[in-house]
């Protein structure tokens, strides 16, 4: 059965709806992390490097304030121009990017700063050099670092949340997802290649994976869906930020005001699928 065979059927409509969601999340004019950092946070100061010999531009780290509260920030960064896309590697990090994130978590723990992460990545970079330098190990260690982070941690998926690369900065106490963003075990293209041996059946794969943001809320993986301007965030960056900022502020306030314990975060991810009683 090809995609064409699905035209006009219920399955075909589901595939089209799921694919439309993916396309908005990847819209070339969609605000990227730094566009939202600049509009939602105050006094952003970028820091550089993993302190182990690398500075991966696909991951941005820094310090900022929100409503007077100092923060540590980590973000996937895609590029908009051809040159910047190359520099940012389309938001796909090498091991140095994940180690840069780890450095930020360490810094935040030492200085008792809450962390805010912005997620927008197709996934970890699938290349030879990344594998040679321990891509899997870097991601695993970043998962560990997030679950040990001794300060409040807020994540917001603003576009694509692809696979293990997204998970590396997602394991927060509160997870927000923009209305047209998604989180997926694999890109629809990769899933289609695996499941149908045909990357062209990406629409069908997107529907089968049920990767629309609303499902994440229903399943308890996200805590809140943040609305976007009509049609999607690409239509109005300022309005997107105006809708997002108060939600970040409220969630952060909630996390910093209650007694904070990273064991609760580990418990959240231990019990997340809700299928098994303790």
């Amino acid at each position, binding site marked *: 059965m090809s995609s064409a065979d699905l035209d006009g059927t219920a399955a075909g409509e589901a595939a089209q709806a799921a694919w439309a969601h993916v396309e908005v999340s990847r819209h070339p004019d969609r605000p990227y992390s730094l566009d939202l950092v600049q509009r939602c946070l105050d006094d952003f100061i970028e820091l550089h490097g993993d302190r182990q010999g690398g500075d991966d531009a696909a991951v941005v780290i820094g310090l900022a304030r929100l409503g007077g509260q100092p923060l540590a920030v980590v973000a996937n960064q895609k590029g908009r121009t051809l040159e910047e896309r190359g520099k940012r590697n389309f938001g796909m990090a090498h091991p140095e990017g994940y180690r840069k994130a780890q450095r930020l978590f360490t810094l935040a723990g030492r200085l008792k700063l809450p962390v805010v992460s912005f997620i927008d990545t197709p996934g970890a970079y699938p290349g030879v050099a990344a594998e040679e330098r321990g891509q*899997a190990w870097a991601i695993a260690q970043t998962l560990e670092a997030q679950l040990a982070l001794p300060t409040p941690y807020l994540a917001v998926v603003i576009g694509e949340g692809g696979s*293990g690369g997204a998970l590396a900065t997602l394991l927060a106490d509160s997870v927000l997802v923009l209305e047209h963003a998604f989180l997926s*075990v694999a890109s629809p293209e990769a899933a289609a290649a695996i499941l*149908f041996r045909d990357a062209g059946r990406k629409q069908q794969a997107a529907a089968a*994976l049920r990767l629309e943001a609303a499902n994440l809320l229903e399943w308890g993986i996200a805590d809140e869906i943040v609305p976007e301007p009509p049609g999607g965030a690409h239509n109005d960056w300022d309005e997107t930020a105006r809708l997002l900022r108060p939600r970040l502020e409220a969630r952060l306030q909630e996390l910093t005001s209650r007694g904070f314990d990273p064991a609760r975060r580990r418990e959240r991810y*231990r019990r997340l699928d809700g299928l*098994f009683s303790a």
Partner: protein
Amino acid sequence: MAISPAYARPRTADSGFTCGACQRSFPMAQAAGSLYVCPACGHHSRISAHERIRQLADKGSFQEWDPELAGRDRLGFVDTKAYVDRLAEARQRQQLPDAILTGAASICGHPVGLASFDFGFLGGSLSTAVGERLARAIERSAAELRPFVCVTSSGGARMQEGVFSLMQMAKSVAALHQLAEAHVPFISILADPTMGGSIASFAALGDVILAEPKAMIGFTGARVITQATYEQLPAGFQTSEFHHARGLIDQVVDRRELREVLSRLLAVLGPSAVEGAGRLA
């Protein structure tokens, strides 16, 4: 417990065993005696979870944990076949509820928590049930101060469970925190293949990481890398030896020596040390 025969005999002819690498044939008894490592070329065939436990655990010592725990089709997933049908077939064929077997065992007299992946069960992929069995085994090992030994053979995420599969990476790492807090060692053994979400979570976090010779290990599979980047793959790319040379794996160990190596590690790291008799307070 009843132990099913090794399933990893896709290349058998009659009652013989044919090596998947050099294609030479051996009587099945000889292949079993060499632990399904080719007596001629040393190729390590994939083995079932049951066979792995039979090879590593002291005879009769394995007590399975959570034998009834199984998952379900959360997404109503259908690709070229319904996921429920895939699951039912795999359960029938592999005689397992899902792609991992866990339990208490001893290795040369050293008590351990033992987990063994079954690649024949949907590629040893990470389902919610696999993640839950793994997490429970880790937690129980921590509680009982048993060094945790996990043999991974897994293609990574189980696509049919979507984002729930992805979250098993987080679940396993959350569980490992308990092992660390209890100062109980985790020995991670990487068998062919250990890819994707499995190596990018628990499997890469062993206090000691061992791998079988020439196992394929990596985040992204070679085929996907070539398709995505058109890069030339270096010789021996993503083998155990490749990662060992880059400081990512402690030792590459022949399967026929694995029990002995584990025994020596456990003698240093094992229960007496866990209870504080040897290690710093």
